[in-house]
């Protein structure tokens, strides 16, 4: 069972996201800020990370850069979630090292597709 780390500070959002993912058969762990996100990425070794970009302590961009700079966690795919539907965000996320990008509120089926596709790629 694939394990997904949800990095998100809003309680509604992480509760909803993690429960919906669990329903689809994923194991989830939650980090409520960037620092915790980095720590859990190291200690739990998730298969994929959903990263809200506007989070306290260390923001999502920085957390992504840290995770992608460490050998132990570099290969974990990261999907960035941002609330700003601004053009250029995608590029910024990809530049920070994210593997994909989605805007909030998330279209859940679309997000599931992205998760599935990244996990498949990782297996290959």
């Amino acid at each position, binding site marked *: 069972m694939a394990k997904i780390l949800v990095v998100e500070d*809003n309680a*509604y*959002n992480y509760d*909803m*996201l993690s*429960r*919906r993912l669990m*329903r689809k058969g994923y194991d989830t762990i939650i980090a409520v800020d960037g620092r915790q996100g980095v720590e859990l990425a190291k200690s739990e070794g998730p298969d994929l990370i959903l990263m809200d970009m506007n989070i306290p302590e260390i923001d999502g961009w920085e957390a992504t850069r840290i995770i*992608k700079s460490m050998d132990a966690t*570099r290969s974990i795919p990261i999907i960035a979630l941002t*609330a*700003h*539907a*601004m*053009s*250029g965000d995608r*590029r910024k996320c*990809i530049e920070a*090292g994210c*593997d*994909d990008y989605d805007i*909030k*509120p*998330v*279209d*859940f*089926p*679309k997000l599931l*597709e992205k998760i599935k*596709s*990244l996990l498949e*790629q990782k297996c*290959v």
Partner: protein
Amino acid sequence: MADAKQLRGLAKLNEEIRLLRIENERLLLENDYYKAEEQKEQLFTHQPSRMAKAYAEQTLIESEYNISHRPKRIANLRVGLEKSNIENEGLRQEMIQLKIANQSLAKANVKAAQLMMDIEIKSEEIESAMGELVEANQKLQDTQNRLIKSEKDALASSQAKSMFLANMSHELRTPLNAIIGYSEMLAEDAEEEGLEEMMSDLQKIQSAGKHLLGLINDVLDISKVEAGKMELNEEKCDILHLVEEIVATVHPLVERNSNILELECTTDINCMYADVTKVRQVLYNLLSNACKFTERGRILVKVKQEIVSRKTWVIFSVSDTGIGMSSEEINNIFYAFTQADTSTIRKYGGTGLGLTISRYFCQLMGGDLNVKSEMDQGSIFTARFPLVQCDDETATRSQASKVLTDQTGQEKPVKTILVIDDDSEMRDMMKRHLTKNGFDVQVAQSGKKGLEMAQFLKPDLITLDILMPSMGGWSVLTSLKGDPETVDIPVVVITVSDGQKTAHTLGASGFLVKPVDHNKLIDMLNKFIHDHSSGSILVVEDNTTLRQILHHHLTREGWNVIMVKNGREAIDKLKSINKLALILLDLIMPEMDGFQLIEELQNHDQWQSIPVVVLTEKNLTSEDNQRLDGHVNKIFRKSTYSEDDLLNVVHNLIYSQLRGSSS
């Protein structure tokens, strides 16, 4: 001055004349005196005395002498007098003339004085007028200052308002996210438990939530534009690709009202610099409007270029045969929150902000959005953008897959190679050499530029220098292999230094040491560049538009594409083709649908192993899934699939197939 001198001369003459006159007078008196003496002498002759007689004689002699000389003197004096008189007369004449001159001078003086006075009066008037002007000016300045200040205030408050709205909208989205998400979860539960009534209510919450989200997004956009916070992110944009992508996205909307959508592209420009997201939003808005307000009609998307006053414009027009608008309605549609008729909001939905935002966006990019419409006849919306063409070095993607005819007369896609090297000589040499060998060569002079171009161009192969300033080759290689968009591009490392092991560890396909052996290089390139002609892709799809779009995407990637309209035609084709790399399949089609075709494939040994990718709109039931299970490699939803994902999957499936069969 001259006058005064003359006057003095005149006075001197006058004085002389006066003296002459006095002399004359005196001479006349003297004359009288001698006359009287003469008479007296005559008296003396009557009283003779010797002495007296002698004296008298003496006196007489003297007198006679005097008298004999007198007329001469008198005559002299007369001449002098005459002369003086003449001179006097001349002087008199001069005097008269001077007097006249003096008089006119005096007159002129008077006139001048009068003029001076007039001037003085006028001066005063001007001075007072100037005073008034200064005052008026001051007043104007004050007013202007006040206006500037109030404009500044207004702008500041408008910006504050817009900022507030922007932040507000942002804040509103978070709880809305929860509302939509939880209602979706509950709807899933309700569906599982068969609670139909609850499900329909939950769907209403969802749809209201999504409507609210749309409104918030639009308000956010408008407030950003008004606050001047809307930024342009211009990037290279493949025009046709963009339009096709949008046409594919609106496909379900087109079908909802049984409309037909046609695309007509007459521009030969492939690529422009634009804020792609915004152009997309504008076109999507125009197209979804056209779909909304047209039933059983025709929607035509035209892309063309036009030169107006030496400027080239890219023009996108969307025309429909829908309900159209009255001239009064046309005047209102671009203003925020005024859909042509408020009743249309109830009937057709929408926020009424779409066109306002679209026009803002067009104008922000230096273009405009216009409309022509007639009641019951339909509407034409025209969005124009000034063309900023991409430069030569960063050629377009469509160029990257341009097609050449080789000796056999067969069309064969040109392979693009991206050369990343900071040494200009090396770049030139590679470019010359590889172009001669039939490759399309693009160059990047730095690692950073190389990464950008790799993402954009999707070259067939990259050659990479290692020792480069700022971003070295190893980091470039790591980034290329870390990006899903470029991970599959083979990289050949070309360097003076060691590092074959590092290159392979980091994912390079080949390693060459400078100076480069060109034959070796060409061999290596041919080995690593995938040969797309290894098989064709069969597209089975009854929708013409979608079929064309798929054709465009796949051929651009270099695939050979065969298109059929249904399962029956697919079977016919399968019989005639010996090498098929993949089938891209729609499920719902007339004559023979996708499910039936899959069954047929399973019944033929030679077809069983062909990878199948399904592209469908159908909500798959568990029965459907059972029928597809194990026979289909990947399922994409028409409404949500991304072109890149689809192409990636196609690519991966075909190559894993190839690798499988060759090993």
